[in-house]
């Protein structure tokens, strides 16, 4: 009997835990705290944070219990991450929620969504310089797109062993947008620039809304077919929304479907940060590069907007450049708030959302491009 007891005790988490598990559990609690107390992206941070806690309860390997063990429940739930299924499904839901009308009203703003993707390619160079292998470097670089599902998708395809740290870095910085972006926004803009008002967007006809997802699928995916699993789903979801005749499908896509994917994606990505595979120098490097990527992305968008202003009559508020990263709707909100801080009567939100949604498209194309570079 004492054998059985000792044996059981030696399999408890209390016995198996070391300092690394404690660190990670504290990290999980911080995520959850930020989400609940500071309201930083709770839809992302709560599932991830709780997942980190659950995933770092140490256990005896061999039972078929952990996320990396075959035949475990968590392994099956993680399948949607490893294959890229959850990101695609999230994009379906995202499409069925996104209103592209402000983008259609001012297509010029789409360029800001392209400019912000420079963060991705600068980070690619940085990651290579730090000694990461090309596929790893590409996966790290995509953090600069500020898009969680896109980052997970590309990493699942190129460097599945890095899903944990890359996803955590991407989501952390997305949650920290209100901390990271404002100083950069202030650094690169003058007060006068921040006060620029944008004219109200024109009315967009139903036909434009209907044709857009089809044209966008064709133009973007013919250019980068590797973006299909993300953009094909995004624009399909959007077509469900705008077509009107299948509102029940769009409704399900934007509730049950995306919620289920969000819960399982976040939770299992959190769980994938098992201390023994997560806590190492590489993860540290990834976090460092992620911060660089976000900052460059923000700056690129702003600077590009200022360059555009040299050539066009109707000036663009360069703050909008910062919402070219695809953290929806976090960065759009940040831009809007800074605009209102300077002038409470200036509404930038709709315009920022236009940049934001082109950022989503832009980073998905970038992911496709990086994927095909690595397959050459």
């Amino acid at each position: 009997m004492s054998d059985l007891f000792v044996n059981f005790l030696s399999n408890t988490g209390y016995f198996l835990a070391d300092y690394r598990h404690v660190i990670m559990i504290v990290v999980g609690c911080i995520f959850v705290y930020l989400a609940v107390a500071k309201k930083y992206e709770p839809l992302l941070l709560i599932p991830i944070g709780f997942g980190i806690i659950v995933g770092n309860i140490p256990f005896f390997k061999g039972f078929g219990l952990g996320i990396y063990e075959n035949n475990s429940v968590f392994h099956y739930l993680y399948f949607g991450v490893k294959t890229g299924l959850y990101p695609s499904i999230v994009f379906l839901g995202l499409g069925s929620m996104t209103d592209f009308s402000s983008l259609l009203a001012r297509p010029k703003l789409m360029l800001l969504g392209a400019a912000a993707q420079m963060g991705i390619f600068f980070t690619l160079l940085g990651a290579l310089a730090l000694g990461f292998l090309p596929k790893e470097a590409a996966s790290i670089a995509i953090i600069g797109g500020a898009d969680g599902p896109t980052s997970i998708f590309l990493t699942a395809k190129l460097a599945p062993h890095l899903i944990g740290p890359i996803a955590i870095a991407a989501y952390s910085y997305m949650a920290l947008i209100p901390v990271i972006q404002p100083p950069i926004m202030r650094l690169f803009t003058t007060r006068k620039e921040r006060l620029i008002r944008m004219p109200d967007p024109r009315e967009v006809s139903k036909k434009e809304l209907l044709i857009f997802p089809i044209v966008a699928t064709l133009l973007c995916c013919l250019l980068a077919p590797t973006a299909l699993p993300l953009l094909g789903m995004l624009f399909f979801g959007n077509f469900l929304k705008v077509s009107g005749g299948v509102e029940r499908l769009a409704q399900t896509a934007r509730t049950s479907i995306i919620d289920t994917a969000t819960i399982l994606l976040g939770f299992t990505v959190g769980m994938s940060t098992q201390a023994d595979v997560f806590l190492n120098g590489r993860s540290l490097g990834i976090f460092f590069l992620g911060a660089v990527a976000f900052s460059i992305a923000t700056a690129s968008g702003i600077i590009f907007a200022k360059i555009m202003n040299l050539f066009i009559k109707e000036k663009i508020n360069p703050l909008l450049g910062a919402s070219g990263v695809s953290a929806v709707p976090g960065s759009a909100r940040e831009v809007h708030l800074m605009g209102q801080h300077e002038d409470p009567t200036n509404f930038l939100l709709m315009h920022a959302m236009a940049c934001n949604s082109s950022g989503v498209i832009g980073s998905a194309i970038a992911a496709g491009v990086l994927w095909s570079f690595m397959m050459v």
Partner: protein
Amino acid sequence: MYGLEAINAQNGWSMALVGITIVFTGLVALSFAISQLKKLIELWENRDKLTGKNGMVNENVGTEGIELPDHWPEDIHEAAGLYEPLFKKLGDSFPLADLYKLSEENNYPHPHLTIKRLRDAQILIPVGDGNFTRNQ
């Protein structure tokens, strides 16, 4: 390998440059396409008008723009009043099917029910050849 050496070895500069170029190409193309979209749609709609293909629009002349009340009247004689524009359009005598079709097209609520009640109330009466007329 680290630093510039690693970047060069892995073809990093090319990848970064080509990469951002492609992203810009994609979004510029899309941006251009949607900026033309509005014009194309307008052109398309005007084409219909210019070539006179708007038969369907003509068909409804005289009944288009009928304003129906939010609450359909309970009283069948009141309801009959709302049907007057349709009777006028259909002429002296008409098959019920035409009246049904027309009321559907003009979004009359429950047309079959109402038509049945119009008959029961002798507001619509048969003229002998399978057609009906408005009982004046």
